């Protein structure tokens, strides 16, 4: 049964992740009074890219060609170990905790960075150096957030954290939890590559993630893009299921409640997508060096959760 649900979860994430970002684009365009592309546009794009010829830069090594597949595999593995449609561990759930998951995320990002370095393109190098300098500051914040969740739940297991927050209103309403959730939202915006950190177009010099994949084409680019959708889908799901809305996630093995929750989870994601669209439409892009101020504020939120813990709960 657990293996079956693992496969369901994997398919759920792989198939629905492009749709979420199609809906996000559509909502943003509608807010700007434009018609916008179809919500299925990411699927059309992927379909087109799968049929296109692959062109690889002359001087690149095999790393460049293989990186999208490796990172896609890593994100697929993460799909099997994170609480997406269940709050009980699936077949591979016990293999890693939050730190382990963070390491796999980090490894996938490293592979992508190596590939960008290998492409020998100036634009990719530009994006890479920016992503690396942002990541070097964003990762410690993420670790701080995980540590704080560990303090709340006594473990680093995302399933246990979900269970604790779902069943304890004291922890759910605590300042410590909400500071952590706020910090994670700020890091989420960085990881999603949304405004005010990054504009999602390749037509400007402020690009970060888009720059790194500039030399890709054909099926390589399709997997690169699809992997990106899966990564973002996973982060958004973790934000909802573990940090802000841990409710309704089935805590016991029951097939019907898991299927019902799959729909509920998609509705939660739609709510988050609408929130992100409104946030993006009401804010303008920061200049690149201002991104570090943003990260400093995110760090402050994560650190304040420590102080809130010692001031209100821990009373050391």
């Amino acid at each position, binding site marked *: 049964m657990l293996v079956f649900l693992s496969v369901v979860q994997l398919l759920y994430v792989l198939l629905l992740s492009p749709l979420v970002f199609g809906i996000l684009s559509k909502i943003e365009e509608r807010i700007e009074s434009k018609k916008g592309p179809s919500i299925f546009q990411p699927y059309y794009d992927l379909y087109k890219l799968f049929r296109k010829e692959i062109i690889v830069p002359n001087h690149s090594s095999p790393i460049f060609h293989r990186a999208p597949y490796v990172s896609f595999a890593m994100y697929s593995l993460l799909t099997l170990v994170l609480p997406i449609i269940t709050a009980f561990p699936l077949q591979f759930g016990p293999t890693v905790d939050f730190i382990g998951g963070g390491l796999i995320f980090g490894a996938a990002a490293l592979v992508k960075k190596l590939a960008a370095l290998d492409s020998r393109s100036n634009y990719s190098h530009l994006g890479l150096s920016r992503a690396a300098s942002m990541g070097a500051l964003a990762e410690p914040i993420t670790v701080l957030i995980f540590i704080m969740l560990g303090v709340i739940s006594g473990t680093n297991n995302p399933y246990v954290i979900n269970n604790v927050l779902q069943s304890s209103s004291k922890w759910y309403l605590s300042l410590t939890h909400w500071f952590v959730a706020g910090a994670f939202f700020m890091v989420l915006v960085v990881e999603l590559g949304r405004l005010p950190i990054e504009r999602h177009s390749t037509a400007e010099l402020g690009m970060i993630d888009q720059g790194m994949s500039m030399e890709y084409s054909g099926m390589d680019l399709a997997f690169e893009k699809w992997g990106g959708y899966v990564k973002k889908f996973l982060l958004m799901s973790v934000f909802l299921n573990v940090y802000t809305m841990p409710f309704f996630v089935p805590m016991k093995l029951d097939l019907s409640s898991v299927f019902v929750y799959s729909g509920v989870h998609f509705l939660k994601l739609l709510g988050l997508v609408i929130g992100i669209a409104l946030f993006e439409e009401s804010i303008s892009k920061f*200049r690149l060096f201002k991104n570090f*101020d943003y990260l*400093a*504020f995110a760090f402050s939120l994560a650190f304040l959760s420590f*102080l809130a813990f010692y*001031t209100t709960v821990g009373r050391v």
Partner: protein
Amino acid sequence: MRETFALVGFFEILMVLFMQWEIYTKKIITTFSISSYIIALFLFYLGIVQNSPYVIALSLISAFVRGFFIPWYMKRRIVRDHWREREIKPVISTAMSIVISLLIVVFAYVLYRITFYNSIHLVEGSIPMALLLQGAFLIISRRNAFIQLIGYMTMENALFLFEGYLFPGLPFIVEAGIVLDLIGIIAIAGVVVRMMKNSSVEMNESDELRG
């Protein structure tokens, strides 16, 4: 009540960190106004719980003077001094100043634990102390006179929070005196700002491009 105080206190700390992040003077003034309203609301709640008309009166005066009048007056002044609408060259870089402000909160917590805590025995008392030091740092880290003034009033807000919660029996006249004192400070600050404007250097195009 302790939870409410901690909630308000941490929200205030967050507001000061936001002020430290922000470079546009108007936004900083608006943030200060919101934080003042929240403190006034907390004092009002405290007054009702403790059945103290003095604290209620203080909250109303605080809401009017700090929440409405001073921010309104400062925004009016800024319209006349366009070049002061944002901090062009902070003394310390923004990201660094946010981190320092955060470290000040930690320092205040430690300082409080080894000093006042021995006689007050309320761990939340470190929050107003942190706000007080953060306000002082806001003054140090910025060159803009308006923002420095906001830093000063943040320190005053911290004092309000401190005495309102921990020493509710403090004579009303002292507290009201501080509020009235602020109006005088604002009037003096207006003169100082005008003098600074007359002696200020001209902005050039490259200054405009600074963060």
